[in-house]
Every structure is written in C-alpha cells, then in structure tokens.
C-alpha cells in the first residue's frame, strides 16, 4: 500500500481542526451534546475496527470493557474530582490496565472464529453486566454509582468532555493508521483472509491478534471512562448496554470495516440519525426501527460498507473507461494501472 499522502494528512488535519473549533465558534448546547456522543461512537467504532475490521474478529462484547472503564472512574472519583481534570489523567492508566486484562480474555475467545467468536464475546457482555448488578459493594448494583460532579463553569461545562472525546478519537485513528502502515496491519490482513495459511508462512498470528484485541479494548475502556464522568451516574444496564456494542459494530459495518475513515463516517451518519428519530418519534422505541431501516437500506445498496463499495465502483468505472476487452481472469498479460486499486478504502 502507498503511504497515506499529503491529501490524507490534509483531510485529517481539516477534520480535527473543524472539530476543535466547533465549541469556540459558539455551537449551541444541543449540538455539542449530540457531537459528544457522535465523536464518542466514532472513537468506539474506530477502536472496534482494530480487531473487528483489521483482524476480522467481530467482537460483540466490547461494551464489557467500556463498562469496566466507566466503573473504574466511578470507583476512584466517587467523592471528589479535585480540579476536575484528575479523572482525565487516570485514563491512560485505565487504558493500559484494561488492555492487559483483556489479553487472557482474548487469548481464550480468539481460539474460536467468526460466528462462534461473536457468540463467545456476547457472553462476555452478559457476564460483565451480571457482575455489575451483583458486586454491590463495588458498583452499587442496580442503585447505580455516581461520580462526583466536576467544578466546571456552567457555560463551558461540556467542553472538557467534548475535547476528551475528540482526543480519544484522534488516538484511535492514529493507532489505526499506524497498524495499516506497519507490518502489524499486513499480518492482520493475512489473519483476516486465511488464518491457517498465515500460520503456515510464519506470521505471528496469535501475537498480532492479541495486540489488536488488547489495544482495542484499552481504548474502549478509556472512552467508557470519559462517558461515565460526563453522564455522572453509572447504571449496569447503561454502562454495559448491548446497544452500545451494536452501535459500534453497525457504524463500522456501515462506513466500511477495515478502513480508516469508515467507522468515523458510520458514526457521523448513525448517531445524528438516531438522535433525530428519537426526537421525532418521542419516547417510544419506534425510533430504533427507523434507525435499523437506515442501516438496512444502506447495506442493501452498499453491502461492503460505504467507503469500500464506493471506491470499488470508482475503480471499476476507471477500468471501464480504459476500454473493453480487459476481463480479469485470463492468463494473457494485460495492461495494468496501479491507480486502479481500492486505495482510498484500504
């Protein structure tokens, strides 16, 4: 693959500059709240993508680590958050600790593949939720657990949380980019395509799988920590909510698994859509149907996700423009344009 060129860096630069400027330019409260959740899901989906997209292991249990990160913040900062920034400083510790904790879990779960793996990881979700309900001394059980309120000024109260989410997204995307440009990504691609063959040619399969899993889980836990601090109250059914797992998976699928921008695009479509439908249909759960409908319609027309499908179509069009009579699958040497690769999506 070609290194991400200047255009890619420029795109990322503009994107994050815009995100950084939005609060300063006086975005209304409702917009900032929506954006916090949008960027949060973009970060979650990007983190999930490290293992679900690049390694091809579609975990459905990632919200377990989100919940662990949330409760870690709740446990340490029950009574006081000092200046208000201490919880953010704890996040790297949470990330590393949960990443390490997830290694034995991944080691066991990743002995299974594909759909079995998905089911094994779902049980992880329910085990964690059950623990959250029952370890009352730690979590407060169904009563919930509160985080001490931060002493932030009212008019910019949301800003620290918003920027924390933006930083988390930037970290997740930077790691994603690094994976793709290193032999870690190359190795993960062989694992996703044909794990047995990857073993057979000496690829460090177990190591790269566990690395992807641990980094992914650590990031998700950090985002869970920011979330807990923001909402201020942690209930088992919300901190370990299957909808959060489903959300990050759907967004990565929608935008395009195994791509850098796909999960971000998916989040920026689905989260605002969900908000909009929730407002339109009120408290009834009908909005979930509309939300599902958006997803299904897009996946019907772009089954591999938006970015891969679109770039494949573009590539095909370019190939067609070069003239007929070039069907792949003949042994005859054929002229080839390296630009006709699915570069944008990879």
């Amino acid at each position, binding site marked *: 693959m070609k290194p991400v060129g200047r255009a890619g860096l420029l795109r990322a630069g503009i994107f994050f500059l815009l995100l950084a400027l939005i609060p300063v330019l006086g975005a209304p409260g409702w917009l900032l709240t929506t954006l916090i959740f949008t960027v949060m899901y973009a970060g979650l989906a990007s983190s999930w993508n490290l293992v679900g997209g690049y390694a091809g292991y579609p975990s459905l249990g990632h919200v377990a680590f989100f919940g662990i990160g949330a409760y870690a913040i709740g446990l340490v900062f029950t009574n006081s958050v000092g200046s208000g920034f201490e919880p953010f400083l704890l996040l790297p510790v949470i990330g590393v600790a949960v990443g390490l904790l997830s290694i034995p879990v991944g080691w066991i779960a990743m002995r299974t593949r594909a759909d079995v793996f998905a089911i094994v990881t779902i049980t992880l979700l329910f085990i964690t939720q059950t623990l959250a309900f029952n370890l009352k001394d730690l979590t407060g059980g169904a009563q919930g657990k509160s985080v001490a309120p931060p002493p932030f000024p009212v008019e910019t109260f949301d800003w620290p949380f918003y920027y924390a989410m933006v930083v988390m997204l930037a970290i997740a995307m930077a790691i994603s980019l690094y994976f793709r440009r290193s032999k870690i990504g190359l190795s993960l691609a062989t694992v996703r395509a044909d794990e047995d063959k990857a*073993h*057979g040619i000496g690829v460090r399969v177990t190591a790269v799988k566990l690395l992807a899993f641990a980094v992914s889980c650590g990031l998700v836990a950090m985002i869970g920590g920011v979330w807990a601090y923001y909402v201020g109250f942690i209930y088992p059914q919300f901190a370990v909510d299957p909808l959060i797992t489903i959300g990050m998976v759907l967004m990565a699928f929608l935008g395009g698994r195994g791509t850098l921008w796909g999960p971000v695009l998916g989040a920026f479509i689905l989260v605002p859509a969900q908000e909009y439908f929730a407002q339109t249909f009120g408290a009834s759960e009908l909005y979930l149907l509309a939300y599902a409908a958006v997803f299904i319609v897009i996946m019907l027309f772009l089954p591999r996700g938006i970015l891969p499908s679109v770039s494949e179509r573009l590539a095909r069009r370019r190939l067609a423009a070069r003239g007929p009579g070039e069907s792949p699958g003949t042994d005859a040497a054929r002229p080839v344009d390296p630009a006709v690769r699915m570069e944008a999506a990879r």
Partner: protein
Amino acid sequence: MTALLEVEGLTKRFGGVAAVDDCSFSVEAGTITALIGPNGSGKTTAFNMITGYLKQDSGTVRFDGGAVERARPAQLYRRGLSRTFQQARIFPELTAIENLVVAAGFSWRDLFGRRVSKRDEERARRMLDEFRLSHLADLPAGDLSYGQRKLLEFAAVLMSSPKLVLLDEPTAGVNPVMIDAMERHIRERNAAGVTFLIVEHDMQLVMRLCDPVIVLDQGAPIAFGPPAAIQTDERVLEAYLGG
C-alpha cells in the same frame, strides 16, 4: 546422499477410511522428487501432514535431521520447509508485492516497522521480475488469473529461502505457456540448491523433470524409482488403469 525428508509409517484416517495408510518414503537433498498417484490416493493429505497443517494418527516425519513430533507449520516454514496449495492460496486483498513480503518472514522488531520497507520492496520486485509478474506488482492478488496466482504463490514460498518446497499440482488448470514458465523456475531453483517434492498429473512433465518418482495408491507407496522404470512398472499401470 542424505535424506532431507523422511516419512515413516504415516497414517491418517477420515471416518474409518485410511486416506494415507502406513506410508513411508524419503526425499534426498538436491532432487526433484515426484509424488504421483490416482485421484484420491492421499497425496494432498500426505502433504498436509508433512507440513503440519494436519495431525497424523500415527507415523513420524523427519525434516533436515530433526524429528517433527508435534509439527507446527510456522516452525517448519522457518526451518525451510514450505509448500503451495492445490488451489493456490494467496491473500486476495493484498497486492502481489505484499503477498511476497509477508511470506518472506520478518523479525519481531520488523513487525512494528514499515508495512513494506524499501528493502522489502526491492527484494519482492526482483522476485516478481524473475517470474515476469512485475506488471502486476501493485495489483490486489485477487485480480490475478488462476495461473498467475499459482506463480505468485510459488514465488512467495521462495521468499523465505526454503530448503525443501512441496508443490501440490503446480500446473493443474494452468495454460501451456505458464506450465513452461513453472518448469523453468523449478529447474532454476533446483540448480540453486532447492529440493522439490512435487505432486503432478502431467506425466510428460514428470518424466522430463523429476527423478525419482514415488507412486502412491490408496494411501501407500507402491513403486519408487527413476521415471523410465516407473513408466513400465506393472503395479503402476494397474493402479492407473485398473483403479
């Protein structure tokens, strides 16, 4: 001569039927040995056990002096035993170059380094040049024709500087021009010191290229010797015609 590969009493049953049945043979260093036999005689299954992809029910495999008790494909590959598959298993989403780079093997440190470094790229391009696949270097391998994929997989296993290469039907489904290319590459590499064990159905190619020839029937060797002797062997003719 020393045997590079020794197979002794290798056996594998699939639901009571022995696909490979008390099979013993050896491959001398420096040879191009053929493993032939009717369809279903257990050639691919034997390959799978030798390379560690499949666990044998009983029997031993010795490669390059060391016994392979619990054979792991990755270890064997690093020790110099590599193979291709009957149905060319390449990584379709990776480019041709990346397919070679990932098969070349790399250290733990390189794992964290560039996906395709300058040195990787130079080595891979030289190999692609040799196989006349340079024009496909940056294309996803999935876009290659069947014959091109077989060549690519062959080129990829050579990247790790193997001592012994097992080729499973390298010319099946490949056009005549590519068969010639394949034969040339096998000869060149063999001259450079690589030993080959080849499953092949094209008898003319076997007679031209290989010596000795091992004939497998119903999971066990029934004949072994130079191609001329095999051609007139009673049991071999019977296995092919009467089977």
